[in-house]
Every structure is written in C-alpha cells, then in structure tokens.
C-alpha cells in the first residue's frame, strides 16, 4: 500500500515535468520524481519492527541478521541522491543561462530550433 503512495508521488513529479510551463517548476518536478524513487528504494528494504543496521559491540550476529533493516538499499539511495544532486545542479545552471539568453523562463517561448 505504501508503495502506491510513492508511485503517486512519482506521477506527480512526472506531471510537473510534462505540463508546467515555467522552467523552475520543471526542475522541481524532476526533484520530486527523484525523491519518490529514493523513498521507494528505502521502503523496499524496510522490515517491520526492525532495528538500524549497525552491529553494536554486545549484540550477536544472529539477532542482527534477524532484526535489522536491509542496509543495501540505503547504500543505493545515498548514491542516487548524489546523482540527483548533480543533475539538478547542471539543470539549474542551464536554466540560469537560458534566462540570460532568452529573457524568459517560459518553456513555450524557448523554441528557437524547429523542423
């Protein structure tokens, strides 16, 4: 059920990218899509009543393996957040330059190339 909510968040981001006319709103839509994917990845690794996946001194490995949430999706999400950051930074830099050149952030007016 929770996964349906993350899919709805993803679709909201997709709506933002495809429908909105302002360039900044397109970027925000993309950020929302990224966050939805990261949330879904973490949720896949969740275990009900689980503990954080840190092996403390007193605990045994058996209880750790039984109770901890899955740490692998957390590693994947860390990488994915950084990738999203890189793309967003590049996107915003290009948006700033577009505003310099075209004087507008309206997507429908940035249509120099056609054919």
């Amino acid at each position: 059920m929770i996964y349906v909510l993350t899919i709805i968040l993803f679709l909201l981001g997709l709506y933002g990218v495809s429908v909105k006319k302002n360039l900044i709103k397109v970027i925000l839509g993309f950020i929302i899509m990224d966050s939805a994917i990261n949330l879904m990845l973490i949720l896949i690794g969740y275990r009900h009543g689980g503990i954080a996946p840190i092996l403390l001194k007193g605990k045994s490995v058996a209880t750790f393996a039984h109770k901890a949430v899955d740490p692998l999706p957390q590693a994947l999400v860390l990488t994915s957040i950084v990738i999203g950051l890189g793309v967003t930074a590049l996107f915003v830099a290009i948006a700033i330059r577009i505003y310099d050149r075209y004087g507008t952030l309206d997507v429908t007016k940035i249509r120099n190339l056609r054919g």
Partner: protein
Amino acid sequence: MNGLTILPIFIIFPLICVFIILLFKSFASEKTADIVGDILALLVAGVLAATVFTLIGKNGIYQIGLWKIPYGINFYFDGLTWMFLAIINVIAFLTLMFSINYMAVYTYKSQFYALFLLMITGMNGVVLSGDFFNMYVYLEIASIASYALIAFGTERGELEAAFKYIVLGSIGSVLIILSIAFLYANFGLLNMVYIAKTFALSPHSQFMKYVIILFLIGFFIKGAIVPFHGWLPDAHPAAPAPVSAMLSGVVIKVLGLYTILRVVLIVFDFRQITGILMIFGIASVMVGSFMMYKQEDIKRMMAFSSISNVGLILLAFSLGTRLGIFAGLLHIIYHSMMKSLLFLNSGAVYYRMHTRKTGKLGGLSKFMPVTTATGVIGSFSIGGFPPFNGFFSKFLIIYATVAAGKYWLSAVALFGSFLTMVAFMRYMKNTFFAKNHNTAGIEKKDVPFFMKLSMTLLAAMCIVSVALVVPKIRDRVITPAVNVLMNKKIYWNTVLK
C-alpha cells in the same frame, strides 16, 4: 583472473586525468591548462585504444576489491564488451585528435577535455559493469557529461537543445532506476549473472514483464528510438562537432543499444521482445528517413540519419537469427565509424565556412581537398556503395531479413537505405561540388593538420574495416559477441563454473 586485472584502467585513467586537468585549470594559466588538456586527452585515449586490442578474445570477470560476487560488484568482460570498448576508445581517440584544432576557437578548452574524458569514463563503465546499479551510476556519469558538453558554447540554440535533452534524458534515467528498484524487490540482489540464472530457471511472472517494459522505455529514451527521439534532432546539431561525432556515433549506441542487448536480450532472455523491437525499428527507419529530406542544416540531416540507422540496427536484432545479430553488430561498428566521419567533416566545413545551411555552401572541392575526399568517402559509405563498409553491413541486414522470411522488413530496410543514399548524394553535391556565390571573406584553404589527420584516419578505417567480414578476422572479433547473444548459457558459464 586470467589477465583481466588491467580492466580498471578504463575507468581510473580517464578519471584521474580529469582531476589533473581541472587542477591545472585552477592553479596555472589558461594556455598551460589547454596544452596539458591536449596532451593528457590524447594520451588517455591512445593508451586505452591500445589496451583494448591486447584484450582481444579474453573472457571473464574482475572482482573489484577482491570481494567475491554476489557480495561485491564486478566487471564483466566478453566478446560483446570487447567490441563496444574498441568502438568507444578508438573513436574517442580520433575525435580528441580532431578537437585539438577545432576547439581552439572556444574558451575553456581544458574543461571541454575534462568533460569529454568524464564521458569516456562513463561509457567504459557502462560497457564493463556486471552489476545493475553500477551500470546505472556510469550511465548517469556519461549522461551528465554529455548534457554539459552539448551546452558547451552557451549560445541560444545550444542551451535550448541541452535543456530538451536533460528533461528527456532524466526521465529515461528515472525509469531505469525505478526498474532497478523493482528488480531488487524481486530478486534481492543486483548482480547481472545471478539474476540471469535465476530468471532463466524460474517461471516468468507478470510483474517482471512490466519491469522489462520499463527498462526498455528507459533505454529507448537514451538511444533516441522513435517515439522517444525528440531530443536528438536538436541536440546533435547544436553541440560542437567533435561532441556531435561522439554522441551520434558512440553514445546513443552504448547507452541505448548496448544496454538493450545486455539487459533485455542477455540477462532477461526475453524472446517476445523481438516483436516490440521490430515495431520500434520500423518506426525509427521511417521517421528518420522521411525527416531527413526537408532539413536545411547539414548536421540536422545527419542527426535524422542516425535515427534511421539505429532503427535499421533494431530491425536486424529483431529477427532473432544468427545472421541478423551478426548484421546488426556489424552495422553498429560501421555506422559509428561513418557517422563520426560525417559529423567531423561537417565540423571541418563549419570551421571554414561558418555556416551549416545547405543553401550557403558549395564549391568546397576547389580549396578543401582533404575535406572533400573524406566527405565523399563518408557519403558513399553511408549511402551503401561498394567497396566501402556501409555496403556490406546494409546488404547483410537486408539479406538477413530475406533469409528470415520477413519480406516487409526487407522493403522497409531497402526504402530507408535508398532514402539515406539519395539524401547524402544531395549533401555531397550541394556542399562540395555546386557553385557557391557566398565565398566572400572566407579563407580559401583547408582545415588545420590534426583535423585533416583524424578525418583521413577515419576514412581509411571505413575502407579497411571491410576486412571484418572476412571469416578469419570475423571469428576473432565479432563471433564471440554473436555467440553470447544467441546462447545465454555462455553468459553465466563464464562466471559460475
């Protein structure tokens, strides 16, 4: 690990040189950084291209950090990987040679080299990686570098093209990471060989079919396959010429076609996909060939021709026969050479004439002999004239469709090839041989030395690479890749004895 310990050099060497170039940019003068960039970029690409040829015929994996799979990630190397590594590094070497002279008119040339080497790192990583998430990370590195490279001149057209490419490319990447999330939920690990084996031994659930469709859409967006091709006709002309050559000749094939081959055809062994590939292949060939006609910009015409040829490759793969797969792989190799040559050629024309419109060009054969010769060779190759390489690959694709009994595909392939030939004959005549009345204020000499050298080498490769069809050479170079694609068991037998 049988001699594959050299594999990390494909990732580490370009990456270290990126940092060295950027260090020089920060702490030394602009000119020093430019020269350091020239030398390092050529050195990297030359070393990598030479290393690829020492690895011919090898097979196996390299475990990173010596962690055993599936606990660690690994590099996977077989015939298909070798073929793509050769294409990436050799064409990168020639393109970098071209950009020594071409990019001199741009500012921040050192950062161009840094971004270019980053793109090479990403593509080498995509081809080498044996793990799904690793492949996604390198795919993103290559994509981000190419977004920045397209916007490199920061003119209006380039920024708009980069913006369109970022939006569509990011949607593709997000679909890919979504599919990887679903894969992890289903299988519990992300190693390609383990998933291949598990998938083959278990019944195919409906859920996995949707995951594969999501993967396919993501890779179609990256590979500019109709109807997801909207970014390519703007992005490839707007980029500087060496970047266009690399993008059209290599990047759409590595990020689009190699990933489809590796993920969908090998790991997932999904025979029903061939119907989908056929439909999208036909659509690409038709749209690409028709739209090539009314373009006035020579690079835009070549961009649509790329779409058409990628469709032709998809048609060849969708046949499912051994000859079809061989024809498709051969066309990947040959088309990357031909299209890179054509884009570099258009860059040389732009360097002298400062325009890309067909109406304003002409009569270049009088004062640009090398450019004309290589342009003629490139146009004849892609038009499919013997004895150049394009003839052999296109003939094999059409023959494979006839041999498989699918005559409507032969008609589509013939139609696409014919339109490509006519469009490029027109390009050749209008650019090099027609009368030109606008040559006032243009220096009437040929392009500088490195540009001529790289174009000549590529044209020579177009002729020499016909040798790949000869059975003895073909069996060493292409048949291992065909074997892996036809028989999935070879794929995991390399790893799990």
